[in-house]
């Protein structure tokens, strides 16, 4: 599916990463990451498993601390925020986890209510219910409201996970492997949902994936992560038609274009 043209405000940088380093012991995962992401843009980070893609968005969400470098999100230096400031900052960040991360001990309704009840205490019961229903409606899963996460399929869990993040109306969305482990039809539905979120909520997003179909259909720009840094950043076609041989061969571009 060809991605719709979206207005991206190139004057407004929402996420700015500069000279970012992160290691785990002797494993140097990120080695000098630089990237600017603009308002309303979807940037896909492509890379093999274990190249540090998930580490990158966990650093952006403040779940990990960088060894060196700066991450500026919505005008805030994430690494410099105190715990309290980080909590406030995270209200503007939506994080869709690879495993969906729905709370097993709560129903779908309770999962969606959880961030709202804790962070928007001024809302009435009716307003909370309306917000939950609206979020579920946005992902097309209104009928699952009273179900338990264990009763949902993988695709449904992903969509509910996205709905849970949308309920707080985030300015930035971070998707960690949104189509991993899903069949092609469900993957397409998730890709469409990511685009819908971008169009309707005007979010700035980073999508972590190694799925080229997902990258092509959701990304305005693609950043290829190899050996701890971005080897190429650009549109999908630019990267795979004129780009680095390592990238082309690595992703077996011909396979998907044929």
């Amino acid at each position, binding site marked *: 599916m060809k991605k719709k043209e979206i207005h991206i405000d190139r004057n407004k940088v929402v996420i700015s990463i500069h000279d970012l380093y992160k290691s785990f012991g002797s494993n140097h995962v990120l080695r000098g990451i630089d990237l600017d992401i603009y308002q309303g843009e979807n940037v896909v980070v492509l890379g093999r498993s274990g190249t540090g893609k998930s580490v990158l968005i*966990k650093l952006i*969400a403040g*779940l990990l601390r960088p060894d060196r470098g700066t991450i500026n999100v919505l005008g805030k230096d994430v690494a410099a925020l105190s*715990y309290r400031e980080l*909590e*406030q900052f*995270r*209200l503007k*960040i939506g*994080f869709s*986890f*690879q*495993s969906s*991360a*729905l*709370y*097993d*001990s709560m129903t779908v309704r309770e999962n969606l209510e*959880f*961030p709202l009840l*804790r*962070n928007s205490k001024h809302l009435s019961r009716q307003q909370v219910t309306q917000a939950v229903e609206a979020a579920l409606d946005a992902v097309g899963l209104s009928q699952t409201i009273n179900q338990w996460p264990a009763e949902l399929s993988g695709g449904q869990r992903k969509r509910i996970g996205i709905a*849970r993040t949308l309920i*707080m109306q985030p300015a930035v969305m971070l998707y960690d492997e949104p189509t991993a482990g899903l069949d092609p039809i469900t993957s397409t539905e998730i890709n469409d949902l990511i685009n819908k979120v971008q169009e309707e909520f005007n979010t700035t997003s980073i999508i972590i994936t190694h799925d080229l179909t997902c990258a092509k259909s959701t990304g305005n720009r693609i950043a290829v992560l190899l050996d701890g840094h971005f080897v190429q950043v650009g549109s999908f076609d630019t990267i795979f038609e004129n780009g680095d041989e390592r990238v082309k061969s690595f992703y077996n571009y011909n396979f998907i274009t044929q």
Partner: protein
Amino acid sequence: MKIKQKQSRQYILSKKLDDFFFDVYALGQFSMRFFKELFLPPYEWKEMIRQSYSIGVKSLPLISVTGFITGIVFTKQSRPSLSEFGATSWLPSLVTIAILRALAPLVTALICAGKVGSNIGAELGSMKVTEQIDAMEVSATNPFKFLVVTRILATTYMVPLLMLYMAIIALMGAYVNIHTNEQTSFTTFIQNGFHTISFLDIISSVLKSVIFGFTIGVIGCYQGYNTTQGTQGVGRAANTSVVTAMFLIFIEEVIIVQITNWFRVF
């Protein structure tokens, strides 16, 4: 082809001892964090009530059955020894002392370590490996406060309550057995039983249970919260929670009995 080189790591003592001391240090830090977060708002009342129900109320059937059986069995086992000296009239006081001072706190703690400790370890462990704890953090909720503080607090005050409940049930079991064999009335049983019990016995048992409860909670939460290596790690967290908590309970029992005995001398 690359030859995989064996990485040499330097250990201060040995790998196992280093890991052990690191774990002790990390557990200490984890406990300190609990005390720090305990007094800082927001207070998770709703979750604490939910945990109290889950840890306390849901353990009642098991505590009731084991308590009643403990009372009966201990009385039955003690009777032959006392009857040799013609001292079966001492059964109520012997049984009451044994139950209140040792059996009720220890058996309750061991049952809770098995039932509650493993449950906490497995639940938090599975939340960790499925990124639910991270999800809570990005929802601007402090997972340590919401998951850990509430569980440790709930075990700390529910285990003593369960211990008192078990003591009553075990005494009932003992009374049923004594009444059946010696036709002792309930009033005589209580009078003889509590004649030798002092305030120190009850307060030391309650304090002991508070410490046992805290141990069960903190070990279960520590193991669960620091789970790694997927589902295998979840199983290990549950198992380690039980084994470590039981081991520490016995160590604490020895220390507390020693301290209580010093107080008895004065």
